[in-house]
């Protein structure tokens, strides 16, 4: 089946999202001339493939529960925010808060992600081929992040049960984040994640990544002792 063509030059965001939502499972669509448009391919629950042909704005693919979205360019803030299932792939860089609060599915950034990538992650998988900015993984509760490049300051601050693997350098760890020993199970997991990431993750050596997880010192609030915040 030929992909449906939708152009941002002619259609409003609502019209595009309504047309995408109406596609039957297995269909595909190309969104042309996004020119930084926000909220494209948001809130879809059908199993479709969507190609966004250029640089896009905020919240691309957000709240998705099934579709596979590919952005052939870079994205603004909060790509794949609150993703439930399916995937969002960005071939360029992503701005802040990539994959924020996502519960499931896979977000792949082939380039760099900016600050607060994976903030409040609740179960999704975030793969970044390049670097991430400061406060990435902040308060991440569940799920996994693989960072192919370097991580900025305060990585994994106030982490809960999410795990962050970093192939490059870590500028600094956030409060209550710690580096843990890499097990064989981690190496297998990272190998699978890098394969899932595909292009842009070939340089990741699964046995040489750093595992960052919660030290669990902030799990119980104690106002009088050992304050770390």
């Amino acid at each position, binding site marked *: 089946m030929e992909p449906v063509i939708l152009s941002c030059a002619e259609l409003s965001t609502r019209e595009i999202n309504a047309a995408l939502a109406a596609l039957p499972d297995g269909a595909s669509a190309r969104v042309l001339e996004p*020119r930084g448009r*926000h909220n494209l391919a948001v809130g879809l629950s059908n199993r479709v493939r969507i190609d966004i042909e250029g*640089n896009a*704005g905020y919240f691309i693919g957000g709240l998705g529960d099934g579709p596979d979205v590919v952005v052939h360019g870079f994205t*603004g*803030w909060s790509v794949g925010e609150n993703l439930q299932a399916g995937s969002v792939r960005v071939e360029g860089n992503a*701005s802040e808060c990539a994959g924020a609060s996502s519960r499931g599915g896979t977000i792949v950034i082939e380039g760099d992600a900016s600050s607060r990538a994976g903030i409040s992650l609740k179960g999704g998988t975030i793969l970044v081929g390049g670097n991430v900015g400061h406060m990435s993984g902040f308060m991440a509760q569940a799920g996994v992040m693989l960072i192919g490049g370097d991580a900025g300051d305060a990585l994994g601050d106030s982490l809960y049960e999410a795990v962050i693997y970093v192939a490059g350098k870590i500028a600094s760890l956030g409060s209550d984040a710690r580096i843990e020993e890499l097990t064989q199970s981690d190496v297998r997991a990272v190998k699978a994640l890098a394969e899932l990431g595909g292009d842009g993750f070939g340089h990741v050596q699964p046995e040489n990544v750093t595992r960052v997880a919660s030290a669990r010192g902030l799990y119980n609030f104690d106002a009088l002792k050992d304050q770390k915040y």
Partner: protein
Amino acid sequence: MCGIVGLHLKNPGLQPRLGELLTQMLEAMTTRGPDSAGIAVYADRDPAPAPPGQELRYSLRSDETIDWDLLAKRIAAETGRDLRVEPLGPDSAVFVSPAAQTSFLAAVRRAAPQVTVPGFGRSMVVVKDVGAPAAICARYGIGGWAGYQGIGHTRMATESAVTTAHSHPFAPAADLALVHNGSFSNYATVRGRLARQGIRCDTDNDSEVAARLIAARMAEGADLADGLRTVLKEMDGFFTLLVTTRTQFAVIRDSFACKPAVIAETPDYVAMASEYHALAGLPGITGARVFEPMPEEIHVWSR
């Protein structure tokens, strides 16, 4: 939420299009703040280097109908210096005067207290008003303006009232203009400190305090980058600031980078905006180096 945009041209061939490009950028940011807007445009307005005691251009604006020629005569008489009037738009005018800046501003206050001076300088003209960017740009014909550098702001007020005086840019010193996305939290404290040094704000707006602070440091001899460092040191809050002087174009973000900023650079220009789609229509944008400034980094371009 507010939207800020700026364009610093390196290629003089683009100068005739500055107003057109700036208008399109500002209109793209309307959704970030539709209540008021303003721009500062810099152009080489004097063919020869100005002599000592050089003229300054004062951008004037009034919500009431003003007989600008009559006001010009009164101010010329008060300051004892000849004065030229250049048309700017409805309810506004540019007065070009060689009088000392303090005596000119005092003369305006005495002669017409309802008139505000959004900005002044050798190269800079400032327009600001209440309303949506498209309407304001159309009313002043900004699309037809030429220049080498310009900044714009479209506002969603959070800290103070929606009036012309409270809108951006804030331009408290000659050829210095600031637009701000964010909010400062300790601005009353800093404003009090400035007041004790004899520096007064025209409004109760938080961004004006930052502009006055930078102007005060630069008056003491600091360069623009040092002025911006002072904001990092003395002011708390969220901010992406775009600040321009006659020769410089600078961007800074707070320590957490809470407010967005995208910069695009090509051999022809440096462009900055809150969101990429304001930049998407610029010539040659597909080949531009597009990046986000990191927290506390100071980016400065000079002509």
